[in-house]
């Protein structure tokens, strides 16, 4: 059963095309990633999905309903964790959950028991009467997640849920998200963190300039676009360059550094080590980050 079904979605702002006719769908129980550099159209797409922005063209169906017509029914069943800290600083930690439950018309008693449960789950019970301003970045992020779950959503939408967190907080958030995934929740996530995407996503798309570049599982994409292993050679010489082009080895030449992608079963590692490694060489597994950089380029975006 399809939870999200996006067809030919298009968004323009005063002539600027932010999202250019993209289509994708998300199955029930799937953890789906939306990746792309800054300004690629991720947040715009997400905002259209939860009914914040109206699409210029195309259609969005969530739970089989049309977002422009049944927006209220859809929004009642999704939880959103926005990129900015949108916690209510005028309220305490617990009040943030209860007042939010009110927006979803959750009965008071029910809201109170769900609130307690969520504070417990996100290790925030000891902070329930604290002011939101006094929370650390990690705690604030966990509270935003808790708030996004207060309506017991069938779909969770996360816009960069771990940006700016320290490694401890980040891993804690990942563990919580994995628990939710095990419970069968459907999740759509945007992120710049490729470890996060590899670890959590069942399937993902990479978008740039408002278009979908690729779609697949992290493993599939890595094999397809970055091979099995990577060798990074610092200060590559002419001999290596000639060898690479003569043998048609997939590579990126960055001048001071060359990145070589070797498929499964290749002995490129040994060849480089024996013949071409003049300064420093790094031998490692291919990652989603390699795929991302190969597809979206290495220039700065902003």
């Amino acid at each position, binding site marked *: 059963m399809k939870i999200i079904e996006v067809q030919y979605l298009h968004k323009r702002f005063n002539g600027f095309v932010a999202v250019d006719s993209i289509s994708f769908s998300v199955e029930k129980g799937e953890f789906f990633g939306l990746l792309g550099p800054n300004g690629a159209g991720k947040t715009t797409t997400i905002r259209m999905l939860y009914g*914040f922005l*109206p699409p210029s063209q195309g259609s969005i169906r969530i739970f089989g309903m049309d977002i422009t017509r049944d927006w209220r*029914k859809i929004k009642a069943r999704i939880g959103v964790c926005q990129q*900015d800290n949108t916690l*209510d600083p*005028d*309220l305490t930690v617990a009040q943030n959950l209860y*007042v939010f439950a*009110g927006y979803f018309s959750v009965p008071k008693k029910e809201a109170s028991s769900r609130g307690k449960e969520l504070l417990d789950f996100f290790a925030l019970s000891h902070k329930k009467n604290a002011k939101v301003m006094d929370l650390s970045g990690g705690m604030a992020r966990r509270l935003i997640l808790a708030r996004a779950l207060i309506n017991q959503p069938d779909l969770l939408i996360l816009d960069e849920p771990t940006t700016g967190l320290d490694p401890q907080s980040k891993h804690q958030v990942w563990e919580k998200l994995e628990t939710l995934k095990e419970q069968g929740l459907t999740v759509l996530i945007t992120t710049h963190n490729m470890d996060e995407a590899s670890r959590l996503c069942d399937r993902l798309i990479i978008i740039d300039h408002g278009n979908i570049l690729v779609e697949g599982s992290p493993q599939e994409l890595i094999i397809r676009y970055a091979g099995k292993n990577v060798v990074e050679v610092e200060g590559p010489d002419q001999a290596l360059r000639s060898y690479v082009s003569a043998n048609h080895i997939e590579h990126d030449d960055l001048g001071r550094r060359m990145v070589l992608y070797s498929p499964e079963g290749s002995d490129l590692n040994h060849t480089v080590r024996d013949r071409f490694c003049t300064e420093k060489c790094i031998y490692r597994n291919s990652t989603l980050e390699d795929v991302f950089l190969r597809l979206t380029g290495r220039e700065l975006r902003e």
Partner: protein
Amino acid sequence: MTHSAFLSWRFLKVWKRNLVVYRRIWKVNFITPLLEPLFYILAFGLGFSGLIGQVQYGGTELSYTEFIAPALIATAVMWNSFFETTYGSFVRMYYQKTFDAILATPLSLEEIIIAEIVWSATKAVGAAAIMLTVLALLGFIHLPQGILLIPMAFLGGLAFGAIGMFFTGIIPTIDMFNLPIFLFITPMFLLSGTFFPVSNLPQWVRPMALVFPLYHLTEMARWFSLGTKETGAVTSIGYLTLFFLFFAFLALKAMRKRIIR
């Protein structure tokens, strides 16, 4: 999609959020309306009135203190509601991103905006009720008809809350609220028959005063507390209602353009 689909009773959820916040600092919220009338009565009524004597208003003679006491409630309604939907709403919308958070729930932007305006009117009612109590105890407001000041405060609060929200929808930065306050609120505060009767103004200025919503609010305040007036109550109630509807409509349009694009 019709606009009616975006408006429902659910706006009360956002209204209630503001009430929860208000109750957290209710003591601070109570002090101003409690003390403000006392200061004014002390300064103008006792200090200033010796220079003035009686005021001719609506065919009767009033002491200066009697004359300004109801107007104090009208101006408090204006300040409370206008400040709530300008500075208050702007901070919630722009700095706290409270509206963004609510827009991820089954509420519409229209419901949020209407809730903010209704909330500003509620706050104005709260201030008016406290001032009413103080001024009635001092004998400046006749009861029971003075109770009608409460619904009047609500209507006035809606009118000023709506125009405040309209400014919030179009203003680029929070400092620029100085402009409507200096060009609209201050002249209105001074020239709406609050501190002297509009009939004292030169003939050519008078129609301007009649356009000010505060003039009509002050008129109603005097009518309900003293039983005297210059303009008909129906005209004033009608004017304030239309003023509210007109600016609520403009505020909704401006906010939709600002937030959703």
